[in-house]
């Protein structure tokens, strides 16, 4: 779910995505850059950077602000409450 170096688009979804899919249908016209990550238990979405045209229509639809423009923000890690699942996962793995 990270941005690759070779790309057309600059938008990406960080790992705090809750999987609501509001972004999935935001791409305009024949663009279809957002997809559900296969086999991800949390149902998160990602952006195919080769398909993304940088329209940014998906950004304001996100309820957790997890879609970023790499040109403005660089590559940032997700932050806030939705990162705490990692602590529970780490606790479970440590047992």
């Amino acid at each position, binding site marked *: 779910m990270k941005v690759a170096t070779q790309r057309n688009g600059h938008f990406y979804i960080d790992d705090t995505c809750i*999987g609501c899919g509001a972004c999935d249908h935001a791409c305009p016209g024949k663009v279809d850059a957002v997809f559900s990550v296969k086999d991800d238990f949390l149902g998160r979405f990602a952006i195919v950077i080769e398909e993304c045209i940088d329209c940014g229509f998906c950004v304001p639809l996100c309820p957790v602000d997890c879609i970023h423009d790499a040109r403005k923000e660089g590559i940032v890690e997700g932050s806030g409450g939705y990162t705490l699942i990692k602590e529970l*996962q780490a606790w479970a793995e440590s047992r």
Partner: protein
Amino acid sequence: MGQPNYTPNDIKPLPVALPLNEEGLAFYEKKYNRDYNQWTEILQKNVERMTKGDLSLHWMNTEGSSWGKRAKPSSRGLTYTDVNKLATSGKMEAETRWMNFAPRGSIREPYFDVMPVIEDYTVASRDELWADNVVTLYEEAVARQWSATRDIPWGELEPLPEDLEKASCQLFTFLTEVEFVAGDFPAKWLYRIPQDFLEVKSFLATQLMDEARHQEVFRKRALAGGGLLHASPGFEWALKAILDAPTHTMGTFLLNLLGEGLVLSIFRSGEMIAKTHVDKEIFRRTLQDEARHVSYGVLELKNYLDTHPDREKAVEEMHRFADVGEQIILTAFTESTVIEPVSILLGGGLDKIEQGLEGMLKVWAMFIEEYLQRCDRAGFNRRERCKIPIHAPW
């Protein structure tokens, strides 16, 4: 609009011995045979025209409309986003005066005065229910429907040790108990929303279907594992508080943003809570549905506050409501019928419940922080006023 004005005095009580349905039927006959006479005028005109052998063909007149512009599909088919680009789809007004079923975008203005009014359509303001993501969430909901009968591998459900099975069945009893309020609440408001806000009504209809399926899958899981266990008064009061919310936005906040957010936190922890791959599949599927409801709740509150003419007042009213709502939700979240089974499942057995309670501490922290993050996103800062302790009380 030519509607008769009824007062309670117009409704004469029928004899007690008369069945209630006859009383209701008599009232209905009175309204539609005597008072609502506009429909009979329409009928009379139609009969006269047909008797003369005349054609109307007025419906072929497109004057005043944007007839002729064709909707074009996007990559995912013909979505509401695609068709709403057209003027023919009709502009969604901030306040609608169309309290009937005349479709937005149709040629309807000439008929305004002779159409009936649905008195129960009381939510006339777009900003009492709109969320910027409601259209795409609806499309997503429709695309991701699933079947609790077919899509869960029920035949592969293996029995668990008794303590884990009872904990699982209690958790699924809890989820069965809470899920259908998330159906009843949108149902209560769906009927109060005029047709011009069809996208919101459509999304709420998907939420109803989602919750019916959740109630179904949790009930089936409990029954497949031994049976339903204990109902909980603490949940019941929280659910009643959601249904009794005075406005759609307040109730949506309490249900979608807080209550369903709590449930979403549990589902997201499903990989650690579930003790069978069948249960994991249940959590995986339900969390996707639940995420849509949470998502609508966040942006609905954001839109309400952003568009309110007196934001400060609106925020304070929401704070007053949240002060009560959070405490009632806390009543549910502290019930032993949810804390203990989840802890047993996290720990791996009744004898490991102490370890499980450590995991439950993390679930609690996750729930609160996720909730406060959602409030932040909506522009509603609850961090200083939140009535739910940030740390679990053990």
